[in-house]
């Protein structure tokens, strides 16, 4: 059976990319409390904030899935500062936009495809990063072992101890560390 990458016209990126996922903690509760219209308006402002900060830290947003976004960064060392800046930006907002975020970071070689709906990122690393997000608490970023190995020393010092999690679809447990973004 051909892989999706073989089936598509995907172009292999020659170096790994930092893959970042983030979501809003308790988004369903926010929707229930404030209603669809308020949530949609504040989410629109949030998206604009994410795009601005991602660009400032030389990353780019690939897609939004409700309250979740997928972004990639050429330089993995820009991700923790980006996540910390976005977390600070949210904490300075008034309710309901002062929602708390959680992030995941993984480093992997991915395929970049230009699709009918825009740029798409393909590869197992995307699934790993997505599923790793649920290990993060609010205001945290969880960093995979692969990403940790590529971080500069001053950022490695921010990481907590290595933990393990079994991710669905993965044969082996994944190792990751946490960063408390409020302390960055």
């Amino acid at each position, binding site marked *: 059976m051909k892989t999706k990458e073989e089936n598509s016209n995907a172009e292999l990126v020659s170096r790994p990319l930092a893959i970042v996922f983030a979501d809003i903690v308790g988004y369903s509760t926010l929707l229930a409390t404030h209603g669809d219209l308020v949530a949609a308006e504040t989410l629109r402002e949030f998206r604009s904030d994410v795009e601005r900060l991602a660009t400032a830290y030389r990353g780019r947003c690939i897609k939004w899935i409700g309250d*979740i976004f997928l972004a990639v960064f050429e330089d993995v060392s820009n991700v923790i500062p980006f996540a910390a800046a976005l977390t600070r930006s949210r904490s300075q907002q008034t309710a309901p936009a002062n929602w708390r975020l959680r992030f995941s970071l993984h480093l992997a070689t991915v395929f970049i495809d230009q699709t009918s709906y825009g740029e798409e990122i393909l590869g197992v690393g995307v699934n790993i990063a997505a599923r790793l997000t649920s290990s993060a608490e609010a205001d945290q970023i969880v960093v995979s072992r692969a990403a940790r190995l590529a971080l500069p020393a001053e950022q490695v010092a921010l990481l907590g101890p290595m933990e393990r999690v079994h991710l669905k679809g993965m044969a082996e447990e994944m190792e990751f560390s946490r960063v408390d973004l409020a302390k960055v």
Partner: protein
Amino acid sequence: MDIGECASASEVVTEAIVVIDLVDSARTSNLFGWHAVGRGLLRDLRTLIAQIGQPHGLRCMKSTGDGYLLTFHDSQSAELAAINAVDTVFELMNHIRVRNREVPEERALNLRSAIHFGEVDVVSSDREGPHISYTFRLEAISRASLPEALNPIPPEESPLENYVLCSEETAEILERRAKKWKTVSIGLLKLKGFAGWREVFRILPE
């Protein structure tokens, strides 16, 4: 057990769950009339499902308005019910392909279907529980869902009708027990009301 005759309200069983939807049924009924065309399509579909499904362990068949909720049971092996469900859906599509060549275009049957496997509550002529809801979520996935998936297939590779999607659970069973079917991931998706990312597969003949 006859179709539609289900056991007591407290019964919990592991079954293969199938949701079959008639593509464009509302449009067809609006354009050509419910009594003239729409009703006949649903009745034809129901007849075909009953004929083909009964020898494969079809245990419950419930109308959903523009399609049917089906469950399959196998008393010897719960997992075999999933294979029987897949066999039924593909046999149904083969019958429909022949039928569609012989009828006017507006009377053609075109289907979307999804198959899942799990524990369900048996209620009178119906089934309840999160696995039922999950199967309806699967069935609602279409080409338009793919931009919101992770590792999606290109949308243009996803057919608009006459395809069969399945859950990870079903794909695992087919992988282990039914070599005549192959499953191809169409991507990881968020399904409303269900936590986490769920990989969704398309079933194809090997």
